[in-house]
């Protein structure tokens, strides 16, 4: 399974944010999407998820040589600012979410099982989401894609709000899940990217660049990335 990005372009009034993105992501890998503030990471994710329409280009999912346009229900998107209906309790939201996606759930799993996967305290499950901390909300969002297991999982700056213990749990979880999914997560924290990802891609000057895999664990990794990110600075 591959995710194919074909010439994605997006401008906001005069500012061209995405200038023709071409890239192929593969199943079984965690991709780190690096970019400076304002490089367009969130814009790219929003275009992929159908949240904002792109000006040109397309996104396709290829399974066994058949490419089909990516559907909204094939995407799990975790926002950097967790967005959840605050009048529900965590339990109610998950139940609602499971009801809606009844056909995608692994048979035999209960709400309780799912909460256990993300280590969510029993008494917190029945509190209004309004009162949840940032990290707790993020966990609930993660649970959404754990439940529906969409082929493509997008995580926008996900682990920054977790404490070390939870971050480690989530990292483990992502690694366990990666066999069956394409996971892309955006961050500007180099260490996290190097630590968790199999591949690194850089969004700079509106285009995507792949970083050779061997760079990832080499000693001069940091300098090379910084050099790459700094490259087009003169144009701005």
């Amino acid at each position, binding site marked *: 399974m591959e995710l194919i990005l074909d010439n994605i372009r997006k401008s906001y009034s005069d*500012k061209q944010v995405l200038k023709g993105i071409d890239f192929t992501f593969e199943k079984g890998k965690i991709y780190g999407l690096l970019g400076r503030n304002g490089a367009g990471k969130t814009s790219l994710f929003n275009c992929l998820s*159908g949240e904002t329409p792109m000006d040109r280009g397309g996104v396709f999912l290829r399974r066994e040589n058949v490419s089909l346009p990516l559907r*909204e229900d094939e995407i799990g998107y975790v926002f950097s600012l967790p967005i959840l*209906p*605050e009048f529900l309790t965590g339990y109610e939201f998950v139940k609602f979410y499971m009801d*809606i*996606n009844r056909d995608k759930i692994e048979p035999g799993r209960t709400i309780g099982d799912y909460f256990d996967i993300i280590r969510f305290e029993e008494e917190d499950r*029945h509190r*209004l989401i309004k009162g949840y901390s940032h990290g707790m909300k993020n966990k609930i969002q993660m649970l959404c894609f754990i439940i529906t297991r969409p082929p493509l999982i997008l995580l926008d700056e996900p682990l920054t709000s977790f404490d070390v213990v939870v971050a480690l749990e989530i990292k483990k979880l992502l690694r366990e899940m990666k066999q069956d999914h394409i996971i892309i997560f955006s961050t500007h924290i180099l260490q996290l990217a190097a630590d968790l990802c199999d591949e690194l891609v850089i969004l700079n000057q509106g285009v995507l660049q792949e970083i050779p895999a061997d760079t990832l664990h080499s000693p001069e990794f940091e300098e090379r990335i910084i050099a790459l990110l700094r490259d087009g600075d003169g144009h701005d």
Partner: protein
Amino acid sequence: MISTLNSIVGIRGTSGANRLMYYFGRIPLLGKVMDDSVYSRHGLKKTFTVVAVILNILYGFLSKFAYLGLVVFLPVMLAGKELPLPQQYDLYLHVVVVLSFGVSAVSSAVILEPRRDKYICVKLMRLPADKYMHAIMTLRGLTFFIYFVPAMMVFAGEYGAPLWHGLLLSLLLTLWRTAAEALHLWIFDRKAIVLVKQTALVWIVIGAGYLLAYAPLYTGNALLDMDAMLFNLPMSLALLLLGTISAVYIARYPGYRNAVDAVTKIDDPLLDMGRMMREANQKQVETKEQDFTAEQLRRDQFAGKNGYAYLNAIFFSRHRRFLVEPVKRRLVIIGALFAAGLLLQFSTPDLFAKLARYLIGGLPAFIIIMNFCSIGERVCKAMFFNCDLSLLRYGFYRERSAILTNFRIRLLRISGLNLIPAVAICLALNLLILLSGETWGAAEALAVCGTILGLSLFFSVHHLFMYYIFQPYSTELNVKNPFFSIVNSIILAAGIICMQFQSTPAYFAVTVLLTAAAYMGIALFLVYKYCGRTFRVK
């Protein structure tokens, strides 16, 4: 001080120009000629700055005309048309003295006012507080006087008083208000109280002041011979002395740093009207956590419901105060009016018969009444802010089938709630008319009930339709889509036009029902067809 003044005017001018350019860019078609690069084009911006400053000055003059004209001159004219001019002039002066010398001295003092540019200049741009305050108070004193002079002179002329009256009154007012500013500062200095922020006190003064100001309009007599009292040498000298002492106090005051700090806290909502509006809007519809006990949040309550039905059941149960409470209030009002009607029937049957005849003929008025009687707009706001705003970020919620399921459940719920007061109105109306002994057949009763129930359904559909098709709210909850307001106004205007038609209840009922049915048909069709595209967070 001139340079400080220059930079303050400069900052105000620039932010005024930016705002002007922003709104210019929002004008349909015309705005297209401007893109974002204009903010950095220097020459153009200079022009806009000059325009902004000129507009500001014009506004200064016009606002004084508007104030004196609408708040003082007009009420005096309406109340005292028949009085001789000198007496009207006395009334006019009385209102000016009570409002401008009295109320505004408490409510509109600027020396301790939380202002955006105070924050920008002193806190962000590090202008020394005393320099800033000296400049701003001088500017205020001068412009206050200058802006008032033309308006004061024109209105004095209207009463046939000499023009120097207007000039002198402006001067006296400026001196008096300078003294008031000094008093505010003195109180702050002694007691650390910012008077303009004592909302309760300010509103009491405003309320009492307006009562006092307008009371003589009913009696037709000012308490004192105002012009003789104001325009004489001793009064002028006294105010001149008071004003000068106050000006010196303001100029020499050593503690402006504190005075500015006290009112430029970053979280002061008064500094940011936009944020205040936003928070107020959100508070109006937000879910309150403390409204629910742990018991209520337990799982069994909504057992047996699934998916969207489950979601909506919880939504409506947690937002009862937007749903059930308003309906209850409406029922109470209907009940009270019904009781009042009954009372009238027993006490003065003649008057009651007149009322009944009016009710029979007044069916068209129910277009307006039912509009106010139906809940919907605030519920839609609550739906948007508490539920859809977040869930619309999820792909599954944006699917057409999901939107339609949701729409159906919500429509049934809102229609059901709106039918309760509608039924109550039908009952009350028919009973009252029956009791009055006017001729009232089953056909007419049916027509009236049909109209009222039809209108109730109509408005239920209307609110939800508007919400789903125009999705007018921004994340700040102010209405952003101009079409929303336009269509809403058209509906209301159509209602008012309908009220002009005089016809039998039966005809009217048929017309209303047909129109409503057509509208509902179109609305439901449009929602069915387009909601997938229109129902988004914008």
